[in-house]
């Protein structure tokens, strides 16, 4: 930019926009303006408008955000714990405290076996099947397939009648 170029452009624009510059602001444009200003002056400064207020609001917002995050973590973490795979032994102890002699056979099946025995619908073949069932369950546990507690109570294998 050269000084002469600037002066030339400056003069051209000053000349071209003269009529706008000299055009007065209409009186209506200021109608009631003074009263509005005095009214606004009387209004108390909003809390967030002051520097201290803005800083305080920022701190409060940060604290609330952290508190919210902490609360969220606190309510979401128990769910995660519930989904963590647990050892089968623990489940066995809880789910079958009354049947220490048949720890691998679900309570419902034992109950059914008793009923079938009373009805003479229980044979030695069935006993053998239970044996197979116990063996297969033991294998599953050893292979880590029995981590899901449901595997112990689910109808994976039902003795044939």
């Amino acid at each position: 930019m050269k000084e002469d170029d600037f002066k030339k452009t400056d003069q051209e624009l000053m000349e071209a926009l003269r009529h706008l510059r000299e055009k007065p602001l209409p009186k209506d444009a200021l109608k009631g303006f003074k009263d509005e200003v005095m009214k606004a002056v009387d209004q108390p400064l909003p809390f967030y408008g002051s520097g201290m207020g803005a800083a305080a609001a920022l701190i409060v917002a940060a604290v609330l955000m952290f508190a919210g995050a902490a609360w969220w973590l606190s309510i979401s973490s128990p769910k995660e714990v519930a989904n963590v795979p647990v050892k089968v032994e623990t489940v066995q102890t809880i789910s079958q405290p009354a049947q220490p002699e048949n720890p691998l056979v679900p309570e419902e099946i034992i109950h059914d076996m008793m009923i079938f025995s009373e009805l003479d619908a229980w044979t030695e073949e069935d006993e053998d099947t239970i044996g197979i069932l116990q063996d297969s369950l033991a294998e599953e546990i050893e292979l880590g397939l029995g981590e899901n507690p449901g595997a112990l109570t689910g109808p994976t294998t039902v003795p044939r009648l």
Partner: protein
Amino acid sequence: MSHATAVNHQEVALIERARGGDRGAFREIVGIYEGQIVRLAYSVLGNLDDAREVAQDAFVRVYRSLASFKSQSRFSTWLYRITVNLCKDFLRRKKTRRFLQPWNPGAEEEGDETSVIDREPSKDRGPLDHMIQSETQHLIVTSMETLPGQQRSVFAMRYLQGMSLEEISSVLGLSVGAVKAHLWHAGQKMRKSLGQHFPECGGVK
């Protein structure tokens, strides 16, 4: 004692009274400067409603900061500086709002509310119709929208307010050289935009 000096003394006395809590004195100050401040804001923003809002905010801030005003600088310079800074803030907020709004191509052509200049006359604009009824002003304000904030302020102060380079320099806290540079770049962009409408601007054809 010259007229200008007398006016200046009167102004200083009013400011002192306003500082002491004299609301009447502050009202007089508002009366003295309201036209200049609304006009300045209008020339930068291109919308009279926005200009009134910003000008009102400027006076309120001045009232609340009177205690911190140092008499070494001119009161008008201080008031102008506050107004220009508020105009810049206003434009920044408006730009952000426009950016955050979903794109609506039809609205822009029809004169959406987010535009710095309302392209369609509206009944609530009132006196603005008188101000921008000419196509010339419409084109200028529309072209000014493309200028960056500082260039826009400098351009408006120089060519729409008629302020001297030194005045602009003291209001914006820039050197005269920096003001010239802003004016030069703004002028080049405006010449391109307005050249076909104003051959006397030496516009690019």
